[in-house]
């Protein structure tokens, strides 16, 4: 897989339009999937994915290890998610000042419940920090291990373990999830329980 990415990068650097388009698609997909879980609405995630793909194409000539293309895209994605959170927070502060109680409606997108499985999960995720959500996205969407998540988020693997652990604990105990049954169609769980205690060895 990494060979084909390296080839694409080489062809893109040579100015081949098709390779450029393929890399744009690869980077945008990767970023969109991450950002969709890390952020609150799909429109913002699409904006992030565009920014990531544009940065990737502009910086492709400076990429020293083409075989690490995906890791590079993850790092850019995390950076863009952080920027987007900063912008959203500033906008929210302005909206609060300007519109009082109606601020919740300002710029809010339609709920993406198809993606977020349930309104309750979405509400529970909204209470996590952007770093916790991003770590969850990299683990559950892309199945990255702690080291690769740490590389993407420019932190230590121990920090990643801590982020993931805190995020899961918050979700387990979040009122929105505790009080509502999950809507996952194939789920047989009727109530979200804490993680079971580790089994004792006899």
């Amino acid at each position, binding site marked *: 897989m990494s060979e084909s990415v390296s080839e694409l990068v080489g062809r893109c650097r040579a100015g081949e339009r098709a390779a450029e388009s393929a890399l744009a698609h690869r980077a945008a997909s990767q970023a969109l999937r991450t950002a969709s879980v890390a952020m609150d609405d799909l429109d913002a995630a699409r904006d992030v994915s565009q920014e990531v793909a544009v940065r990737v194409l502009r910086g492709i000539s400076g990429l020293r290890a083409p075989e690490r293309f995906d890791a590079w895209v993850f790092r850019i994605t995390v950076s863009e998610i952080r920027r987007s959170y900063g912008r959203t927070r500033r906008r929210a502060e302005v909206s609060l000042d300007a519109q009082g109680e109606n601020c919740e409606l300002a710029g809010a997108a339609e709920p993406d419940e198809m993606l977020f499985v349930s309104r309750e999960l979405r509400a529970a995720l909204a209470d996590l920090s952007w770093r916790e959500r991003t770590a*969850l996205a990299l683990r559950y969407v892309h199945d990255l291990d702690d080291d690769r998540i740490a590389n993407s988020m420019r932190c230590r693997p121990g920090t990643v373990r801590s982020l993931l652990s805190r995020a899961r604990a918050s979700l387990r105990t979040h009122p929105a999830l505790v009080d509502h049954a999950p809507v996952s169609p194939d*789920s047989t769980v009727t109530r979200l329980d804490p*993680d079971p205690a580790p089994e004792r060895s006899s």
Partner: protein
Amino acid sequence: MTSTDRLLAELGRRARTLEPSAAEIETILERSHAPDRRATSRRWTVAVAAMIIAVLAALAVPATRTALADAVDSFFGGQARDHRITGQPLTRNQIPRWLAGETRHALVVAGTGEKRLIAYRSQGQYCFLFGAGVGICASGRDWAQQLARNPVVLFGPTGGPGHPRGTLYGFTRGDVATVRLTLSTRPPITASATNGGFAINANAHWKPKRLDVLDANGRTITSVSVVARFNTELNAPMRNPSTGN
């Protein structure tokens, strides 16, 4: 697997089905070829930061002058702890007789042919001697202030009115390695300034234009016009040998 993990796994599975649209990819390709607004913004940021640094540097000149005053002191003392300009000490026999009464310590800073630029201390002042016994003295603070403004302090040319041949001397700051005198009628003349000064024999008829002051990497630190200095030599009335005027 806990119920939380199952929910998150389902969320991940649904997220993996997301794809950018063809229109989005087209937009990305277009934007990637357009000028980078962020880069422009960064360039502005760098420019503004550079301006702030320049202003702060200007405010820091007094500190620079103090450092230069120390350097000038070391220089005239024949020692250069923080300054690489040193000069060649003259032995007692080499010091001009009329100067021997004033100082026992003098340095040849630069020379060309028989012309010398000599530095010495006299009565708490720092002096330069050049040409036919021309001496210029000032306090260390004054020299330091001059060097803070310009990397070179020029003396001469020493031909005198009516004498187009003359030697141009200069006292240079520590970061100056060479100087280059550009002429209108012939190739430029380059002189070393590694001892803290230089001496260049020139002729006003060669129409000297400017002096380029260069660092050790050959980069131009500054350029000084010398047209007026040499025009004075040319335009001065010829001395009448019979009257001596």
